[in-house]
């Protein structure tokens, strides 16, 4: 049993679910949950069996690897690798996949077989992206995520689903083609200079590029990742896709698909083009801070609940991007934690929005209000995930944001201070959400059932994960530590500013003012 099964399991499960969908609508759900559960268990066992951190140096961060040739004539290999970073994200994928199936248990009534096929194919693509170490394979999985996601939105979506799904498709497809150009450019430049034509990531690392080549290839990759992440100003597909998708679609978009963009930045962009990234680093950080604030400001003014949550994703992913461009251990570990916790907190908010929409048949917040009196359990959950979203200390998102900002302060104090005002903005939109949906006068026309056992369990587990990461993030941090350390070494050394080791007390004097940027 090796790492390739992590991709095969959801693929096979999806096909079986499709076949099973002809018999009954229950079968696909069961098959999907079972196969995702198997994937989750397998990833967890890999985690458990991985050698302790002390035994792994930064150079050999791979917990599991799989390499076989696929199209040898073109230098394309089926090369997969799992390190701490991809392990955490694969765990997240299977977990949120299960949540996605569970939360659409009663929502999806038509063509359940095909729905689950698409759902599982998206997940397959996502897992593949997180594991690929061959650029061609990576591109293959990158595109694999796209088509079934398009179907999920355009078939099972809400009123404006056609518009949203086409917009989503065009944005990701166009930017994906730019990445393909970047991949091919790198392939030929590497081939010409060394004589070895290969798409293998480990071999392409350290390809000698002129600054001009490096910059343009980097921009090609960055286009795809910045659209997926999304970075302002390439974000405008997101609110439409998120709000029109069915609950499971929103959950997977926000919880997982956005992370593939961040993962691409971390795994491919910076290690492949360290110098080019260094030259645009400040622009990247400014764009991240702009994304944090711009997303939050847009979230604040929305009337559509799902649209509001969608815009908060832009804000939260801004922190991830800031952490990546700051590129030091603190900020990268913060970005990893932020990715995981954002998956849970925003995913849970989308689940709640889906529950509300199923019961009220609207996403307009003007039609809600005073729900605390009607559905106290749901309101309590809403409060919890709202607080996670505004970065309350003690919850996981705080760890992520705090580490990102702490790390990015080393690079630029001003940008960090600007990004930190996002903490005020997140309080504004989260509390507005609470007020509009759950607080305020009780309305007599609103009667609905509180969340049921299935829904409560899903949300409670997600809440528990956020609390545990908030109070004891050690296991998560240790898992990603070797991977992050290895990646940092691949970046440009000037990217990582030196921190101050404990005990390294400098003699007094004005010189200490130099760190004040």
């Amino acid at each position: 049993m090796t790492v390739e099964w992590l991709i095969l399991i959801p693929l096979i499960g999806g096909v079986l679910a499709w076949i099973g969908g002809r018999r009954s609508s229950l079968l696909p759900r069961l098959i999907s949950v079972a196969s995702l559960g198997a994937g989750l268990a397998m990833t967890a066992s890999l985690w458990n069996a991985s050698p302790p951190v002390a035994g792994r140096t930064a150079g050999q961060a791979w917990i599991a690897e799989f390499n076989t040739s696929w199209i040898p004539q073109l230098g394309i290999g089926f090369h997969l690798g799992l390190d701490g970073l991809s392990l955490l994200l694969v765990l997240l994928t299977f977990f949120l996949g299960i949540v996605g199936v569970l939360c659409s248990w009663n929502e999806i009534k038509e063509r359940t077989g095909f729905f689950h096929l698409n759902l599982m194919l998206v997940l397959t693509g996502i897992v593949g992206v997180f594991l690929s170490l061959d650029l061609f394979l990576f591109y293959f999985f990158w595109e694999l995520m796209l088509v079934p996601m398009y179907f999920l939105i355009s078939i099972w979506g809400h009123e404006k689903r056609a518009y949203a799904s086409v917009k989503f498709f065009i944005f990701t497809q166009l930017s994906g083609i730019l990445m393909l150009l970047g991949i091919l450019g790198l392939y030929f430049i590497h081939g010409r200079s060394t004589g070895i034509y290969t798409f293998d990531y480990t071999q392409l690392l350290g390809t000698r590029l002129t600054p001009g080549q490096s910059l343009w290839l980097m921009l090609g990759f960055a286009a795809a990742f910045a659209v997926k992440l999304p970075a302002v100003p390439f974000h405008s597909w997101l609110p439409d896709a998120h709000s029109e998708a069915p609950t499971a679609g929103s959950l997977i978009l926000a919880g997982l698909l956005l992370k593939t963009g961040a993962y691409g930045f971390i795994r491919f962009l910076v290690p492949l083009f360290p110098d080019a990234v260094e030259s645009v680093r400040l622009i990247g950080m400014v764009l991240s801070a702009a994304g944090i604030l711009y997303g939050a400001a847009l979230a604040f003014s929305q009337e559509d609940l799902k649209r509001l949550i969608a815009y908060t994703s832009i804000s939260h992913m801004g922190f991830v991007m800031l952490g990546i461009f700051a590129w030091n251990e603190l900020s990268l570990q913060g970005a990893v934690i932020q990715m995981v916790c954002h998956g849970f907190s925003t995913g849970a908010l989308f689940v709640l929005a889906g529950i509300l929409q199923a019961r009220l048949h609207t996403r307009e917040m003007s039609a809600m209000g005073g729900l605390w009196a009607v559905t106290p359990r749901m309101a309590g959950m809403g409060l919890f995930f709202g607080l996670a979203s505004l970065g309350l200390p003690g919850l996981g998102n705080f760890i992520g944001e705090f580490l990102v900002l702490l790390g990015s302060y080393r690079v630029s104090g001003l940008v960090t201070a600007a990004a930190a005002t996002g903490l005020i903005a997140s309080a504004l939109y989260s509390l507005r959400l609470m007020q509009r949906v759950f607080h305020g006068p009780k309305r007599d026309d609103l009667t609905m059932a509180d969340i049921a056992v299935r829904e409560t369990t899903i949300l409670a587990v997600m809440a528990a994960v956020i609390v545990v990461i908030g109070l004891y993030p050690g296991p998560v941090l240790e898992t990603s530590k070797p991977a992050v350390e290895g990646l940092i070494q691949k970046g440009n050394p000037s990217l990582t500013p030196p921190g101050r080791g404990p005990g390294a007390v400098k003699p007094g004097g004005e010189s200490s003012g130099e760190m004040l940027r």
Partner: protein
Amino acid sequence: MTDLLWLIPFMPIAGFTVLVLAGSRLPRSVTGTIGTGTVGLSAVVSMLLAAGFGVKGDGYVVTQTLWQWLSVGDFSPRFSLYLDALSLVMVLVITCVGFLIHLYSIGFMKNEEGYSRFFAYMNLFVGSMLVLVLADNLVSLYLGWEGVGLCSYLLIGFWYRDSANGYAARKAFVITRVGDTALAVGLFLLFTNLGTLQIQELMQRAQAEWPAGSKIAVIAAALLLAGAIGKSAQLPLQTWLPDAMAGPTPVSALIHAATMVTAGVYLIARTHVLFTLAPPVQSAIAIIGAATLLLAGLSAFVQRDIKRVLAYSTISQIGYMFLALGVGAWSAALFHFMTHAFFKALLFLGAGAVILAMDHEHDIFKMGGLRSRMPVTFWTFLIGVASLSALPFVTSGFYSKDLILKLAWSSERGSVWLWAAGVAGAFITSLYAFRLLFVVFFGDRLTRAKSDPGISMTAPLVVLAALSVAAGLAALPEPASGRQAIQQFLSGVLPAAHIRDERTPELFLLLIASCASIGGMLAAWLLYVLFPRYAEGLVQTRAGRSVHRLLFTGWGFDRIYDRLFAGPFLWLTRINRDDFIDLVYEGAAWYSGVFHHLLGLTQTGKVRWYAFGIGLGAIITIGIAVFL
């Protein structure tokens, strides 16, 4: 026994957890017992630990490490508790006053829905505050810091059905978060430059590496100060506190006396080394304190809502603490924190009893003559008012305020002006405090008022009244050093103020301060008991009306902030609701639509048009080839 330290913050947090998970299924008596009992147990544990300190206190420290919170690179904060004389004073006040407020709440909230929710939030409030004061590093302190902010939000908006309460709650959270964000940036700066956030180590390194008055020390201190201003409701971030009245009265007592607003005072005292390295910032603290105590005191004087009077009073009294911190009188600030916690909790709980007796009436001019109907409330309220007014010799407030005024005069960083502001503030304090007492409890008797509440609510009043008097004992001079007992107790943590001139005319200062308090009381007596018409007439004049309006609205800060920040923000977000960046993409889509349509027009199906097109194209192509 020192191993029990963790129980102090753990008990209320455990109470919170139980009440959140199972609260709605528990009977009210159990809910109240859990809520109150956990805080009571914390109080007992803190008293046990206090015994270890003896009377001297100096230098004695209890620490306990619970677990490693996180560890990334050189950043590895632990969950670790640190109890020294400073945090002990805080812990004792928080748990004891907190316990009394919880006890009182059992009676006060007995007819309210959301009973378990209330106690859960209250427990979390006390627990967060305990985490804040016991934290040994600034990240854990920040955890407690945001925790109290959250609880204030939850409790101010406790009666969530009224949207105005929700507004007040959000206002409190967002305005304090402005300060919190500055504090967070301060932490980033400190860690980046000094490599640690362990408070003790940080202070040592700052002292060793940063010369006094260096730019970086000033910026770091200013950022921490901004955090402190937000939480402690000082100028210019004070506007949230008067609106925080929207919560149930015990919540106000908790916010004003035991938790939340004193956090800023604690933070500055805890990191006082940093502030002594930044003299400009320390001067700013003193000036902010002096300005706040005057402005808020004057606003308190004209309020009609009983709780708003007390809210402005809190802002003003914290101003005194800031004044003390600004002149380097660290332990005087702590002393005033302690006495203020007792008498302000007393006043709020007394006000709660009055409000209950008046069926949730808040307007003091609709009250009157409650003296005979509610004797216990009256007498304890009188003690609270006297202590707030710093009436000489019998009240604890007198001793703590006197110490602040004396040091505002004589400290190296003090000045006559700061002292004068303090004395003027003392007069104003006494004026508004006795105005409140006279209007509510004297005058014509109203028949519709109910009588004193039950024992569970009056007992805390009596205990707090006793503490309001007895806390003055902490001012007894220590025979060995001649300093006051509280100063001596804290001397291991907080250094004494540097005295500019040893020949302070102490007796003269004492006399002036006493005259100010008594004068304020007499003025209130004249204006509100003997000649009530006169005060009314004064307000009726044109100048009187506009001054009254200015003071009544808290100097118009809310309006300024609405114009400057809230309004533009709302406007910008509203016009950009549909995201103008999306227009670019929409525009691209529109143009391709137009081109599609135009090109579609050329497909006419008429052969001569096609032939014409081919011919034209050929001519153009040949033309280009020939001429270029």
